[in-house]
C-alpha cells in the first residue's frame, strides 16, 4: 500500500503533508508528556521493529503470502499517538532508503497508515476489548480486528486518493497525468486485496502477537488497557459513565435521521429496478454518472434478484407508518438496537470462550 512517486499529483501530496503536521505535533506533545526523554529510543526501536516485521511473509490460505504493517500491534502496545510516530518513522526510512513508497508521497502514506491507521486501530481495539481482563481472549479478537479494520481504512483512503486523480489532472489530450483509475476502479481494486489477503495477514499478526504476549509478558498490554482493565477488576466503579456521552450522541443522531429526507435523489448505484422506468430517476442517474444514460430497462440480474428479499424497513419507510420522519427514527432505533444486540452477543460469546487467565496485575 506504499504509494510510490508519480501516482499522486503534487497538490494532493502537499495537502496530505499539511494534514499530517498537526497530528505529528500533537502526537509528539502527548508522547513527551507521558514518556519524557524515554521516548527517543523507544520510538526508534519500535520503528525499527515495525520495519523488520514487515519482512515476515506469512503463508496465507490460497497459496499466497502477505506481510503485516504492524499498525494494529504498535497501537495496542504503544497507544495511538506513539504508534503514529513510530509507524511514520518506519515509513520515512522505507521511502528514503529502501525505495518502498515515494518521497513525494511520504505525507500520503503517513496519513493513510500511521495516522488514520493508528487512530482507527485504537478506536476498534478499545471498543471491542471493553473492560475485559488483560489475558482474555476478547483482547486477542479485538487486537486482530483492530489491525484488520485499520489496514482496510488505510487502503480505502489510498484508493480515494488514487481515484480522485483522473478527475482533477489531465493533459491536453485528455490523458490522466497521475493515477489513471477513477474511484469506481480504484476502490474495488484496492479493497478486494486488503479485505481478503492483506487484511488477514494484519489480523493474524495483531491477534497472534497479542495472544503470545498474554502468555509471555502481560505487562506490555497494560498501557492501552489502562483504566478499563483496572475498572473491570475493581468492581463497578463509575458504572456506565464513560459510555453515557456516546449513548447521548447516538440518541441525538437517531432524532436527526429525518434530515435524510432533505437529500434529493438516491445514492449513486443504489437505484431500484423501478427507477429505470421513471424519467425523473433516469435524469438523476445520468446527472450522477457523468452524463452516461442508463439502459432503457433494468439489468436482468437486478430485475431477478430485486424481488428475492423485501426488507421490513424498505427505504427507511415501514409501510405501516404514515409519517416519513417517524419512519426514519423508527428505522434508526431498530437498526441501532440490532447492532447493539449483535455486539452484546459477540461480547458474551468471546467472554465465555476466554480461558481462565491470571488476575489483572
Amino acid at each position: 500500500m506504499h504509494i510510490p512517486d508519480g501516482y499522486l499529483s503534487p497538490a494532493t501530496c502537499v495537502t496530505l503533508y499539511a494534514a499530517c503536521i498537526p497530528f505529528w505535533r500533537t502526537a509528539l506533545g502527548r508522547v513527551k508528556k507521558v514518556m519524557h526523554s524515554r521516548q527517543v529510543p523507544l520510538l526508534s526501536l519500535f520503528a525499527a521493529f515495525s520495519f523488520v516485521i514487515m519482512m515476515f511473509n506469512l503463508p496465507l490460505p490460497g497459496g499466497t503470502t502477505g506481510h503485516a504493517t504492524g499498525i494494529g500491534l504498535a497501537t495496542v502496545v504503544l497507544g495511538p499517538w506513539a504508534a503514529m510516530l513510530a509507524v511514520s518513522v518506519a515509513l520515512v526510512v522505507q521511502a528514503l532508503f529502501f525505495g518502498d513508497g515515494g518521497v513525494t508521497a511520504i505525507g500520503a502514506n503517513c496519513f493513510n497508515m500511521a495516522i488514520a491507521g493508528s487512530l482507527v486501530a485504537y478506536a476498534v481495539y478499545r471498543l471491542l476489548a471493553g473492560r475485559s481482563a488483560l489475558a482474555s481472549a476478547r483482547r486477542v479478537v479485538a487486537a486482530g480486528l483492530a489491525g484488520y479494520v485499520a489496514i482496510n481504512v488505510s487502503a480505502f483512503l489510498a484508493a480515494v486518493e488514487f481515484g480522485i486523480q483522473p478527475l482533477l489532472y489531465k493533459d491536453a489530450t485528455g490523458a490522466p497525468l497521475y493515477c489513471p483509475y477513477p474511484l469506481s476502479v480504484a476502490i474495488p481494486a484496492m479493497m478486494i486485496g486488503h479485505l481478503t489477503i492483506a487484511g488477514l495477514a494484519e489480523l493474524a499478526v495483531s491477534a497472534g502477537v497479542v495472544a503470545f504476549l498474554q502468555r509471555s509478558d502481560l505487562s506490555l498490554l497494560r498501557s492501552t488497557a489502562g483504566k478499563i482493565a483496572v475498572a473491570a477488576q475493581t468492581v463497578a466503579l463509575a458504572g456506565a459513565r464513560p459510555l453515557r456521552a456516546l449513548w447521548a450522541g447516538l440518541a441525538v443522531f437517531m432524532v436527526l435521521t429525518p434530515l435524510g429526507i432533505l437529500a434529493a435523489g438516491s445514492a449513486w448505484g443504489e437505484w431500484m429496478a423501478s427507477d429505470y422506468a421513471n424519467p425523473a430517476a433516469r435524469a438523476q442517474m445520468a446527472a450522477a454518472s457523468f452524463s452516461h444514460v442508463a439502459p432503457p430497462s433494468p439489468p436482468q440480474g437486478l430485475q431477478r434478484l430485486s424481488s428475492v428479499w423485501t426488507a421490513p424497513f424498505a427505504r427507511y419507510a415501514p409501510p405501516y407508518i404514515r409519517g416519513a420522519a417517524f419512519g426514519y427514527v423508527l428505522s434508526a432505533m431498530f437498526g441501532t438496537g440490532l447492532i447493539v444486540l449483535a455486539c452484546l452477543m459477540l461480547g458474551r460469546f468471546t467472554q465465555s470462550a476466554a480461558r481462565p487467565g491470571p488476575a489483572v496485575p
Partner: protein
Amino acid sequence: MSGVHPHKRGGFIENTLEGLHTAMERALYAEASASRGGLLQRLDPRVKVVGVFSLIAAVALATKLWLIAAVLTLAVLLAAFSAIPLRVLASRAWIAALLFSGIIAAPALFLTPGTSLYGLPITVQGARTAAFLVLRAETAATLMLVLIYTTPWMHVLKALRIFRVPVVAVVILGMTCRYILLMLETAHEMFESRKSRTVNAMTPAEQRRLAVAGSGVLLGKTLHMSGEVYLAMQARGFRGEVFLLEDFQMGKLDWLALGAFAALASASIWAGR
C-alpha cells in the same frame, strides 16, 4: 505497506532469511558505495538532498513525457559519474519500479477512454498515462538510489534539517536506521537458529505460528533493548535534550553544484508546464 506475494519456492524460514539478508546487504552496499570516489560523493549532503528532491518535484510537476525522460537520463549520467554501476541501477531501481508500476499501469492502456492507437485495442490517452506513471516512478526511484548510494544515511538525515525537520525527528530517524540493522541481524539469527533445528517441512499453520512467535519475541527484545539504550544514553549524560553536530562545510564545488541543480530544476519545472 501490506503486501501479497505468490509463494516462493523455499519455505517460510528460507524466504524470510533471504529477505532479511537482502535488506542487510543493500544497507551495507549503500554505505560502501557512499565512501567511493565519485562526483556526487564529493558534494555536501545538503546540496545533494536539495538537488535530488528538487528534481523529483520537477518530475512530479511535469506534464511532458520528454522532460521526465530527460531527467531520467540526467540521473543515469549522475550515477555513471558517481561510480554506481548501471547493473545496480537496473537491478535495484528499474526492474522493481517497472514490475510494480508496469502491472498497475497496464490496464490503463485498455481502460482509459480516448482515440484508438493504430487500430489496436489500446488508446493514445491510455498509452500516455501509462508512460507517465512508469516514467515518473522510474525517474524518482533512480534519483533516490543515486542519493542514498552516494551519501551516508546519517548525512542524508542530518541534511533534512534544511527543510526545518525538527532535531528530535532527525535523531529518532537516525537511531531507527542504526537499529534497523541490529534488528535485521537479530531476526536473521532467530530464524537461522530455528532453521538449523528444523528437519522436516513445516505446514502453513506451523509457519504462521512461527512468524507470530518470532514477531512477539522480537517485540519483547525491542522493548528490552529500548530500556537498555535509554540507560546507556543516560549514562552518557542524556537528559532529554537532543543535539546534532552541524559539521557540513560548503566549498566552491558545492556552491557550483547547488547552482547547477537549481538551474536544472527550475528549467525542468518551466519546460514541463
